[in-house]
């Protein structure tokens, strides 16, 4: 309710104050990169992003903001939001109201369902990604890059980083962890009460359900293009049946689930369960460093791979400072910015670049990054990546899990 109110107040403010700053002198689609950089000089980029991760906020406000000011005379203003979906629904309202310029969002951190909504409602400026010089370091041939949760990117957003699901275990307790989903399922059956996953729609719990879904799919890439609903329903109902059948073997006999990955990590650290997992490949190392996990904890990926996704930045159709937003997106993709972001003490985010495309000395810098004892190597991770299914599959699986597995209907 408060959010809606804020939204209305914001809209009021916008309609009262704006409509003056419309000085889009050059045609950005046709301009050369040189001209775009010139146009960006002195502009201010208002970057709306999820603000719940202190390390990210520090990286953006200190490193990125300083560099953009020094290199391009661009002022970066981070606008932290609780959920970028709020900004997307604000854009939907602005689009309906016919507000085509002077919007106060210049850049937003986005992926998955929110990107799909934006694309469907024509809320984005572009295609602009192919105009960015640093795009040449990105491997656009990877399904997890050219598809954002099954929605073709089509240059409407520019990659910023990526994440991959990894399994976490303690070598002192489980010297031989199961190396595939099939083995993990057997392991759960043989060790009742020792496994748990957060209840979807929690992000991390939801990705576990998708791994079970992939286990029941003949081909993971089946879901990337057009698929038949009947095929989906078969695999989905197999997923629900298996998860329902596994319930008695789960933590607390599946009568309740951890409500967040944080709680799952606590259960794992307390020895109530033997596995945790995370959609952040460096989570285990960070928790060892923070003293939450014992030093014997390690991570692994399944032989068949684990789900990974790319997160992007996009520019709204009515952004006031599009040129500066493009320059910022390009800077975010530069080897130096990606390098800084990948440092474990800064953020530890996985680069959006294909490292093998960089000059040799920069490649070496990425390889030499301290990784933490429990983080797998880039090669190991990249060799075991599965794409995310389209977001409508994700939503159907979350709803189906709730209906069939949680409520048993």
């Amino acid at each position, binding site marked *: 309710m408060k959010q809606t*109110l804020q939204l209305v107040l914001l809209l009021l403010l916008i309609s009262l104050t704006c409509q003056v700053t419309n000085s889009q002198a050059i045609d950005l689609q046709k301009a050369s990169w040189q001209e775009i950089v010139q146009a960006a000089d002195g502009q201010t980029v208002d970057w709306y992003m999820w603000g719940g991760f202190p390390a990210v906020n520090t990286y953006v406000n200190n490193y990125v903001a300083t560099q953009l000011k020094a290199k391009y005379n661009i002022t970066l203003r981070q606008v932290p939001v609780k959920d970028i*979906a709020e900004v997307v629904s604000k854009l939907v309202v602005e689009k*309906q109201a016919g507000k085509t310029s002077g919007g106060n969002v210049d850049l937003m951190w986005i992926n998955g369902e929110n990107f799909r909504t934006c694309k469907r409602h024509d809320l984005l400026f572009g295609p602009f990604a192919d105009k960015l010089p640093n795009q040449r370091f990105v491997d656009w041939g990877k399904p997890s890059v050219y598809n954002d949760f099954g929605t073709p990117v089509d240059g409407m957003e520019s990659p910023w980083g990526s994440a991959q699901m990894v399994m976490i275990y303690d070598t002192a307790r489980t010297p031989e962890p199961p190396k595939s989903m099939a083995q993990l399922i057997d392991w759960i059956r043989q060790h009742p009460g020792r496994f748990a996953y957060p209840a979807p729609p929690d992000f991390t719990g939801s990705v576990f359900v998708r791994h079970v879904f992939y286990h029941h799919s003949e081909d993971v890439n089946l879901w990337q293009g057009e698929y038949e609903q009947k095929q989906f329903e078969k695999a989905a109902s197999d997923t629900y049946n298996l998860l329902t059948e596994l319930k008695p073997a789960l933590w*607390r006999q599946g009568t309740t689930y951890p*409500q967040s990955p944080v709680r799952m990590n606590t259960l794992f650290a307390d020895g109530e369960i033997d596995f945790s997992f995370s959609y952040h490949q460096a989570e285990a190392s960070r928790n060892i460093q923070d003293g939450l996990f014992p030093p014997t904890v390690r991570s692994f990926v399944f032989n068949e791979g684990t789900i990974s996704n790319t997160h992007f930045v996009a520019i709204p159709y009515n952004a006031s400072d599009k040129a500066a937003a493009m320059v910022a997106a390009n800077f975010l993709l530069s080897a130096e910015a990606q390098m800084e972001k990948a440092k474990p003490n800064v953020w530890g985010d996985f680069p959006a670049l294909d490292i093998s495309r960089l000059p040799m000395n920069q490649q070496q810098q990425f390889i030499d990054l301290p990784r933490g004892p429990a983080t797998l190597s880039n090669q190991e991770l990249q060799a075991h990546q599965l794409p995310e299914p389209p*977001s409508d599959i994700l939503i159907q699986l979350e709803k189906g899990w709730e209906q069939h597995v949680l409520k048993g209907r």
Partner: protein
Amino acid sequence: MFSPVAEDETRTRTIETGHLLLLLTPALLIILVLFGGGLLLGTLQALSSQPFTEKNALTFAHFTAVLADPDFATSFALTLYIATVSTLVAVIASVVVAISLVRCSAGNRVLNFFLQIPLTVPHLVIAISLLLLLAPTGILSRLCSFLGISKGAASFPLLVNDPYAIGILLTYIWKEIPFITFMILAVLKNSGNELNEVGRTLRANSWQRFRHITLPLIAPSLGAAGFIVFAFTFGAFEVPYLLGRTYPMVLPVWAYKNYTDIDLMARPEGIAIGLIIAAIATCSLLLSQGLMQLARRQREYPGE
């Protein structure tokens, strides 16, 4: 002799009321605009058929969808169970605490200080503390297995995320006892003693004195405090979210889940649940207000 003084008093009182209203206006405006405005916008969203789109019409569909959902009955029952049981236990315990405080150590500062601790600790903090204390691998369980009372985590009884909501009830009871105690303590300190002494001279035993003197005296305040606690526990989110089970869930958690659903169309249902909670809490608060009036009248005209 008395009349001019009385007139003067009434005049100052009316001036004070006018003054008071003026002073309160900014605060009242904020409450009315933010709270009333939010409530109004929420109602509009809950009543619109397709929010965030152009095709929009007023409809009760979201409310009927919520009420027809088989989960509504379970969620409602669970919420009612938690609110009622925690309120009743807190009310009974508060009466015992307040009476013993008045009898033995009304002026005991240390005791008063300890009673004030739960008032200042946020619900979230005590919920997390209970989680650390009562979880199967929590401190209490470790202590028990260390002392040989239980055989490790598996044999320790389930006290959090459990089917009987014991963890949630404990949090609320711990938190609300001091609140109710202080509410009735004010009444007891003011008028309890003389009446009790009269009772004693008339040879009423302690049960009779409690039944016929103390209880009627504190009943309105006790009821008022109870309804406030009920309204709060019925609408509170964080404690059941942390200490409850994944399913069934209490109404506030259900509302939150719908409101934050990735599907924007689930929002109106979330708001509809929120409004149902708000309606029930408002009823409870009105009852509390009524009892408060009664208590005030009783204090001013104790004979009636």
